[in-house]
């Protein structure tokens, strides 16, 4: 996992719960916490921090990831406004993930393992979004989608119709814009 993910997590934890909580999470997960956005770090460190946060906050890991994704989007929008400004809606923005945003990610972080989404826009007002990744971070993706919708000020209904955690071979999100 790229260091930027840890940086985002730290920023959100510190912002919402303060420095001490972040320090506590680091201790509990047994990591030293020196992350630079350009570095790569073992996946286990991220999962360890998420698990620690869930315990500390009395929440599920999925909820932590979803909340993380939702909050991270606001930070990303501030840091990389061009990807958000060039699109007019949540759906349009999500559709640029494969062709614009992830290729850009790879330019900056050579070797970054980004997921490939599949999209189906055949029903008006509904975006079917498929996700498949060995990290099974569908909850994070859920949060990112919600964060994007917040950015564009669009209410949405999110339905996690298939999930790898429930034994499906991939996750499918049915996202309806009202």
């Amino acid at each position, binding site marked *: 996992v790229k260091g930027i993910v840890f940086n985002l997590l730290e920023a959100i934890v510190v912002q*919402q719960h*303060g*420095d*001490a*909580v972040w320090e506590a999470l680091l201790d509990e997960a047994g990591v030293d916490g020196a992350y630079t*956005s*350009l570095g790569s770090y073992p996946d286990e460190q991220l999962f360890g921090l998420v698990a620690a946060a869930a315990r500390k906050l009395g929440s599920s890991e999925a909820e932590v990831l979803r909340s993380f994704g939702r909050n991270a989007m606001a930070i990303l929008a501030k840091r990389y406004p061009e990807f958000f400004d060039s699109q007019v809606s949540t759906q349009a923005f999500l559709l640029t993930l494969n062709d614009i945003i992830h290729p*850009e990610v790879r*330019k*900056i972080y050579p070797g970054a393992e980004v997921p490939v989404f599949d999209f189906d826009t055949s029903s008006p007002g509904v975006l079917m979004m498929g996700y498949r990744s060995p990290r099974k971070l569908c909850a994070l993706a859920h949060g990112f989608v919600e964060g994007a919708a917040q950015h564009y000020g669009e209410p949405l209904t999110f339905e996690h119709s298939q999930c790898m955690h429930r034994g499906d071979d991939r996750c499918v999100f049915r996202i309806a814009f009202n």
Partner: protein
Amino acid sequence: MAPDDAGQGPGGTETELGRLRRSLERERRARVEAESIAERGLRALYEKQQETLLLEAIAAAANEATSLRDTLQLAVDRICQYTGWPVGHVYFCNAGVSPALDLVPSTIWHVAHPTHFDAFRVLTEATPLAPGKGLPGRVAINGQPAWIRDVGTDSNFPRAAGAIEVGLRAACAFPVLTGPHVTAVLEFFSEATSEPNESLLGVMRQIGIQLGRVVERTRAQERLLYDAFHDHLTQLPNRALFMDRLQRAITRRTRYPRYTFAVLFVDLDRFKTVNDSLGHRVGDELLLEITRRLTGALRREDTVSRPAPGAGPEDTDNTLARLGGDEFTLLLEDIRHPSDAVRIAERIREVIAVPMNLGGQEVFASASIGIAVSTSVQGSGEDLVRDADIAMYRAKGLGGDRCAVFDATMHHRAVERLQLETDLRRALERHEFRLAYQPIVSFPDHRVIGFEALVRWQHPEQGELSPAAFLRVAEETGVMTRIDYWVLREACAAARQWQTRFPHDSPTSVSVNLSAHGFGRSDIVRQVADTLQETGLDPPILRLEITESVAMANAERARDILMDLRALGVRISLDDFGTGYSSLSYLQRFPVDTLKIDRSFVVGINQNEECREIIRTILNLAQSLGLEVIAEGTETAAQVHYLEGLGCRFGQGYFFSRPLPLDEIRALLLRGADDKDGVLILPKTASAS
């Protein structure tokens, strides 16, 4: 959990803690700043690497390219791959062809989805652009890459509606430059609107230069290829290309037996005269003018002819070629009937006949045209061209300025003639020529006053041939001059022998004919002088005979040459007199000793009053000019009697003696030597038989 509000401790600690916090915050900001600088650097590096890969790929392709089209296709594909833009296309610039068609859409495309952009494709391929018009037009005029943020809001993009329909918004384009010239424009389209990317435009500019190298190289190759198959002066196809097209026509005929074509062989009449008298520059101008007229005439033909079966669009034109010199050939494809070929040949003669002004001089040209039609032969392309050539020679032989269609008998005649020509060239080396001597006799005593040397060719297969059988070929091939000189030397040597062996007070003369070619040679006077010197012959014994028509053809020049010859001491006869329309004024000034009445008048004495009148006139004329007259072709006693009666003093013909071989002349001279007066009288019994 509430945010941890640190800094609650005692004042000193609080201050220290606050300071540490600020310091930590600064460090954090510095790290984020450093990271974002690094990110920008990495991103720039990545893009630079991709650019380099793209440029390298295109430069490598450009270095190895043999086809411009393939290289452009590769460039369009690679650029679309690099930019992620779904559509790329090439316009070609045809500067100077037609202002309205300066930018012509090619069929070179990159499209990401096979059918999605079809409508735009069709629209583009139907949209040639004037300079300045649309995106390619702008690039063509400025020679610089250009970018359109959104074709929907651009004021100069004619294909906007079609582009928007298939979802294309941003566009950019760049020129392929050879030197300062834009030879093609590559255009690309994105599905999103997009701000100009200066870095990308820079890369495109460089790609345009790389592609320009390919244009230059392929053009040079095309030029070399073109030169190898075209005539330098007229830019018409040359023999090699003509034969190739002809071969294709022959192949087509084997597949489509009703397909008929014709080969026309066009040769200008008297082109050499134009070249010699007006100079090669004017000669070249003439050829260029003829080329323009022929292509013009054929272009009008093409508009009414139909394409050949199984022919591609490039095959429909008739092929006009220049084989060299003033020889043009024309391949008429898919004519309906052989008469079409004749009609076109006559049309060609018409356009050539229109007077032309060359170098301030009005020049009249005409052509002889030979026609060979594919129906008449089964042979090769070479055979067809040869047949058309033979027919052309036939047209020339009939006086030129006409057409002749090849038929098989012409081939026989041509082969015979070629054989004769070949034999004739060898005849001198093989000593196949002999001289016969016909006595010239005085009236009424029948005394021999001289001999006319007449050449005979002992042909190895055809036996003895008189000049009539080979004179024309000998003159046309230039062998005649050599024969003239051989006769001159042989006759002078013989006469010198007779002089030595049979010395006489009034020695018999020897007459030698000079052909038009021999007389026209600039070295004729020197040749005669040399021959006289080498043989040691007394000059007055030699009589040189030229025909009246040769003398009158260029009377001034003839007079000069005759004066020079006379200055050597030889005597001059005008042969075939009465047929050449002499100008009396010239005749007076010609240094001539003898007129020889043409045999046609002598033969006509008995039947034709007109002949008798002409003979009387010639005799009167000769008397008043103080010239001798010899009547040729005297065959009967009646003719001799009549001539004597008019005061003609000399004759020559079968009545007196046929031409005799050298040994019989010797015998004759030997008998004369026995005569007590040394007078040589022909035995009556030997003649008139």
